């Protein structure tokens, strides 16, 4: 996973609450056994009709087509746990999502895929939506290291993020590799831990 650097980019306003992972990547694309190939199907039912782009959908309009920052309303990423949703978002090229709140599983999945979900207070989200309406091609600068977003018109906000998640993005940690370093601790836990279910295990 690439590490996360500071950058400035266009903000695409997706003015919807409760954007669920079914909307982010619909079920017909979940049959793939690959980790890639989902970007072109991001927001499929909102983006396309009869395989043609819907001109009024935000990501089908200039200058938002390649926007790396998505602005949305509360409870973003609710519903299904499918990691295909952040895979699709990352592959499409969105690096940051700004919203008043995120659903838990989606929020966790973001950090494993190089996406920064930024929780901002409602009033900041309102300000940002207004700015995207008023300023053509509105851009913000995202600085994860200093936990700060700002524009060139005087808006600045600091955001909260756990230090562990921050490191995940900044350093692109191999979480499994790190856990496997503790294998002996897991061994000793396991030897004292009892599990009471058993099936007639048939090993191939």
């Amino acid at each position, binding site marked *: 996973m690439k590490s996360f650097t500071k950058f400035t980019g266009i903000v695409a306003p997706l003015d*919807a*609450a*409760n954007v*669920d992972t*079914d*909307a982010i990547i*619909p*079920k*017909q694309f*979940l*049959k*793939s*056994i*690959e*980790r890639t190939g989902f970007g072109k199907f991001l927001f499929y*039912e909102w983006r396309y009709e009869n395989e043609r782009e819907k001109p009024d959908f935000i990501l089908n309009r200039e200058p938002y087509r390649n926007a790396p920052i998505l602005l949305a309303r*509360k*409870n973003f990423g*609710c*519903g*299904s*746990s*499918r*990691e295909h949703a*952040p895979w699709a978002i990352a592959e499409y090229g969105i690096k940051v999502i700004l919203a008043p*709140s*995120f*659903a*838990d*599983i989606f929020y*966790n*999945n973001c950090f*494993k*895929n190089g996406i920064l979900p930024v929780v901002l207070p409602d009033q900041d989200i309102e300000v940002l939506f207004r700015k995207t309406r008023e300023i053509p091609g509105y851009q913000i600068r995202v600085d994860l290291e200093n936990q700060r977003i700002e524009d060139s018109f005087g808006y600045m906000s600091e955001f909260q993020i*756990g*230090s*562990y998640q921050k490191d995940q993005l900044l350093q692109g940690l191999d*979480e*499994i*590799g790190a*856990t*496997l370093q*503790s*294998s002996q*601790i*897991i061994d000793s*836990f*396991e030897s004292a*831990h*009892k*599990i*009471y*279910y*058993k*099936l007639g*295990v*048939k*090993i*191939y």
Partner: protein
Amino acid sequence: MGRTLYEKIWDKHVVLEQQNQPSLLYIDLHLIHEVTSPQAFEGLRIHNRSVRKPELTIATMDHSIPTTDRTLPFRDEIAKKQVDALEKNCRDFGIQLFDLNSSNQGIVHVIAPELGLTQPGMTIVCGDSHTSTHGAFGALAFGIGTSEVEHVLAAQTLKQFKSKTLAMNIHGHLPQGTTAKDLILSIIGKYGHDFATGHVVEYRGEAIRNLTMEERMTVCNMSIEMGARAGLIEPDSKTFAFLKGKQAVPEGELWEEALEEWKQYYTDENAKFDLTADFNAAEVIPMVTWGTNPGQVAGITETTTLFEDLAEDQIRPAKKALQYMGLEPGTPITEIAIDKVFIGSCTNSRIEDLRKAAKIANGYKVADHVEALVVPGSQLVKKQAEAEGLDQIFIKAGFQWREAGCSMCLGMNEDLVLPEERCASTSNRNFEGRQGRNARTHLVSPEMAAAAAIAGRFTDVREWPVKERKEVSLQ
């Protein structure tokens, strides 16, 4: 200071704690299926890693499989490839798989409890958000992403931050003619689609203690629909009675030992929750969702929203939802006609659900313009239903009787709601496009779904003239 049920399970499973880092939590049971696991196995192969404890992972096929005749060839080539990949992965890594020919196959959240794999005090994860279902047994169970599936396969643990706790105190009794589905839909309707985000919710109180295990599973299943990380219910004598004799449950001395262990899992009287909410079960009536999230819901005697009772930030989403659903504000729920009925899903496809739906359907005919499906949650449920003659009740009434799977809940197979068709569904999500592109989903209980199939529109099941079964053909 006492501990909550959640804290007791958490403490029992912490392998390692480090400052500013998530805890390393041991996972007792890992459930996998064809859709969210292939990329995890691919990751293991890329890094040349093995599965740490293959005997603690159980696999089944449920999401993308057909529910029609299993002896026919698999028509969806891409879905077939996914199912084949699961089979190969299980074989390569030594994981037990209940495949399409297995008598134990079924929806992952139906089979684990019915086999007795789901037990109090356990940690259970699955790459599926409705893993919260297993909380009905007092197990800490939650959905995870595919990266985490890979982590559990490799290390039998997960890195987790502790959640906050929420006590949902449910007072009073559920009235006659209402169900666990109506209860959980009412709670989500009152508190909202994201009320419990960041929390593990424990359902408490008299109304919960009175529920059967299957009803408790329906409640915990939809915890995720109010944003909760997991749902929990304290195990009690009903839990233990349900488990006794199940395939994977120990017998004899080991049963006694397990029972002693399970009895420790309750919330201490002086334990503190981060948040407390109250709900009066006595006010529940049969519920029908009218919108595109489960919190957009009304009673059968009510109408679609008139926006008056909504908070300001809910008005615009409600207008958008009604537009998608093709409904006017203030439409009486009983005037909404339907095209399809789906009785199934990890929310409502257990034997008790099918018995209740069959009781309504017995002796009636599905309305001419309605296509109705009954999809048992597992092969074991199907077999039991057939032994009780429930299949014949459904078939005579004009319902289709299918093989076990997730089916029309998410429409990954051929079981779809077509554009602008309206479906009464016993599943858990009424999101835009969930059951098919531009499909309109109304979430209801199995009883309400069966009644809607026959009436062709939503109807108050409390007034339904039930016809007694004359003969019971036990096979």
